């Protein structure tokens, strides 16, 4: 929002004539940093009848004399648009970033006129005119200036930006076709070329975010995507008599004065890449000597200038020094962050095992005794036995870590190296796969288990089946296969519900349920094969409008649900959404028949084009039958409807006269028309008894 940021607004008592080459200016010291968008000047009554265009400009000043030097931006008004004896607003053609404590100038000029026909910029002749706030005049069209006493009446308006150096920014990323793509600028994905071919998207993959990095577990491909560090390289990180820097050392560039805190090095001897957090504006250059302290222990020469991320490198022990920092598992497909540790699991040779790195050090895996921060290796078994196969890692902040296993659920409370405790929550329900879970806004866990969808309240209560009552055949109907299908669960906070999706790896054919946390009901959904959901994440984008669930689709695109989208974007073209719902109403009791005589639809939208969004048309079909089951069957079999039609418009519609007789009435609402959607408030029916039911 634009508000007045600088100005001098009182005490005006004298005219400053402005015309032709006779320009006037007022300097000022900016009180704070902001974005200048417009300038107001008080223009008194004209002298005579001036013509031309009034220009008000914002100038940088000459540091030597504090007088106007170079124009930054301007705004204009035709003389006919100027209001005499009033503040006039001049919008700058481009906003100008104003820096606090810097001297600027407001300059007013008129493109025509003379002394008898001019505009008058009002000023306070007794204004103090101290350095940095000075009235000045030019008689050569702004080429040279002379300081004067008094102060012109002016105001500079603008907006204060509250971003500051080091603002946190969210970036989305996506992985497909053995490639890693990230959001380089808002709304744009760019490939990270270094990753190409170093990911195998045909194998399981998961990630954890920590320390401005993405840690990927893709079986033997354990990698880091580093956004936070700078990088440079050296031909020899430990020349004769020297040692490689340790993690946390401050490296200083002797020539540049640049400094960085070392985070990771790729080797402790010979050629190496060095990654660390820059802590100066100065930058490391190629061929520069860098050292720790006085260089007695660590000193080497760079052979590249520093570069910003994202960087792609192998995730391994610090400096690849397994003697000092232990060995990572050779393979892992599960990774998470828990209590400042990176946790790995999903190794097919050790399926019951997990590995935890040192606290706040993803590159140290060497277990140490009597060390609360030590790396840990363990198994989710409370008696140290063989344990169960770990299929999912589900962290709950720094409080506890759930292990979703093949046939059980285990919970680790606290830190395993310091009084942590492993408990078995359930020994009969396991989780389908690594992505078959999600949490809602209250921290309740939902996962696809042995017999369908389960809820674990708070993520630590015993699992409760949500589908036994309403979808008892869910798992047999779905028959998900780990080799053929991907199952994902994803909580949508915007719509307060969960997508439960099964997609076939090769074809993209999909079956989904929407579980509404509002109604606690299940709603089947289906999508074009190209849109099948392979992955999902809730993206906490910087812009509120972009905060939504992202779905990684079969065809390489990332999609989201949009309320105003009436079709599915299926790549080259849109696909109409085929929607339908059918149910059966009883027309008569026991052996009595009933007759439907009319239907009244009340469609969403109120009055047409009013404040509420309007529905499109919806089609209906009626299936009278002797009994409820037959009516349902007719609908499902696609039998010829007794009658059908389309209801268009909004609000209460005209009565539809019908003569449908039977023991039950199937009612189907549907839409297959592209670019249409619908919503219904009510449907009213008039019925009357129709004698005995004839079978």
């Amino acid at each position, binding site marked *: 929002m634009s508000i007045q940021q600088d100005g001098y607004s009182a005490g005006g008592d004298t005219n400053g004539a402005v015309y032709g080459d006779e320009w006037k200016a007022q300097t000022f010291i900016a009180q704070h940093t902001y974005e200048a968008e417009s300038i107001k000047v008080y223009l008194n009554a004209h002298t005579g009848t001036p013509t031309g265009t009034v220009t008000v400009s914002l100038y940088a000043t000459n540091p030597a004399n504090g007088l106007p030097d170079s124009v930054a931006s301007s705004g204009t008004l035709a003389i006919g648009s100027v209001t005499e004896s009033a503040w006039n607003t001049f919008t700058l053609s481009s906003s100008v970033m104003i820096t606090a404590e810097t001297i600027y100038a407001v300059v007013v000029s008129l493109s025509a006129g003379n002394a008898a026909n001019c505009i008058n910029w009002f000023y306070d002749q007794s204004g103090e005119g101290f350095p940095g706030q000075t009235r000045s005049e030019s008689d050569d069209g702004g080429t040279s200036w002379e300081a004067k006493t008094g102060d012109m009446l002016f105001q500079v308006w603008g907006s204060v930006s509250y971003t500051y150096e080091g603002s946190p920014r969210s970036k989305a990323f996506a992985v497909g076709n053995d490639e890693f793509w990230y959001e380089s600028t808002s709304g744009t994905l760019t490939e990270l070329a270094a990753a190409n071919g170093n990911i195998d998207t045909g194998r399981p993959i998961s990630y954890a975010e920590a320390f401005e990095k993405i840690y990927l577990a893709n079986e033997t491909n354990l990698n880091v995507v580093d956004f936070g560090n700078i990088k440079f390289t050296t031909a020899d990180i430990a020349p004769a008599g020297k040692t490689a820097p340790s993690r946390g050392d401050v490296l200083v560039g002797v020539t540049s004065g640049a400094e960085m805190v070392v985070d990771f090095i790729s080797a402790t001897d010979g050629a190496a890449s060095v990654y660390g957090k820059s802590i100066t504006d100065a930058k490391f250059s190629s061929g520069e000597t860098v050292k720790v302290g006085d260089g007695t222990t660590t000193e080497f020469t760079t052979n590249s200038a520093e570069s910003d991320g994202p960087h792609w490198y192998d995730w391994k022990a610090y400096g690849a020094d397994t003697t000092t920092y232990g060995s990572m598992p050779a393979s892992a497909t599960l990774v998470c962050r828990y209590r400042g540790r990176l946790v790995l699991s999903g190794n097919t040779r050790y399926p019951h095992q997990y590995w935890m790195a040192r606290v706040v050090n993803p590159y140290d895996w060497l277990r140490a005794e009597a060390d609360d921060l030590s790396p840990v290796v363990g198994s989710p078994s409370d008696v140290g036995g063989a344990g169960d196969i770990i299929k999912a890692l589900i962290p709950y902040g720094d409080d506890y870590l759930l292990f979703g296993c093949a046939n059980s659920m285990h919970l680790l409370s606290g830190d395993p190296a310091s009084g942590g405790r492993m408990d078995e929550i359930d020994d009969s329900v396991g989780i389908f796969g690594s992505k078959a879970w999600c949490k809602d806004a209250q921290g309740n866990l939902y996962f696809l288990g042995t017999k369908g969808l389960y809820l674990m309240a708070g993520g630590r209560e015993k699992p409760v089946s949500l589908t036994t009552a309403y979808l008892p055949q869910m798992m047999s109907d779905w028959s998900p296969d780990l080799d053929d299908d991907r199952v994902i669960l994803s909580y949508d906070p915007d719509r307060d519900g969960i997508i439960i999706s099964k997609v076939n790896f090769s074809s993209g054919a999909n079956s989904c349920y929407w579980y509404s946390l509002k109604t606690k009901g299940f709603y089947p959904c289906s999508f074009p094969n190209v849109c099948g959901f392979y992955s999902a994440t809730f993206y*906490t984008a910087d812009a509120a409008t972009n905060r939504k669930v992202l779905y990684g689709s079969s065809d390489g695109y990332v999609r989201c649900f949009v309320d105003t989208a009436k079709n599915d974007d299926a790549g080259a073209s849109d696909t109409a959404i085929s929607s*339908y*719902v059918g149910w059966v109403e009883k027309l008569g009791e026991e052996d009595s028949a009933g007759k439907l005589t009319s239907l009244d639809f009340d469609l969403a939208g109120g009055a047409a084009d009013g404040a509420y969004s309007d529905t499109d048309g919806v089609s209906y079909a009626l299936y009278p039958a002797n009994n409820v089951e037959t009516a349902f069957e007719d609908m499902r079999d696609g039998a010829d409807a007794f009658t059908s039609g389309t209801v268009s418009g909004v609000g209460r519609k005209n009565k539809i006269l019908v003569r449908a007789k039977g023991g*039950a009435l199937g009612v189907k609402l549907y839409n297959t028309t592209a670019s249409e959607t619908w919503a219904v408030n*009510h449907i009213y029916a008039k019925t009357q008894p129709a004698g005995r039911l004839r079978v």
Partner: protein
Amino acid sequence: MELSLPLKGVCQGFNPDQLPEMTTDYMNNVVPVDTLERRVRLGQRPGLDKVFSQQVGGSATPVVLVGQVTVLE
């Protein structure tokens, strides 16, 4: 009479004439909160739109992982 729209979604395993109130076993792409005003009433589900114009991997292969990272800029 007002027809009982199946606002509570699907239900399987019951005799059709004994289904719990406001449920059915025959529906697809219909949700209980509409896309027009986000009210609890039966309506067609929202459609899917691309978030980014770029195709990950440059070809029609699945996006097997999506996520986010927070960085200081």
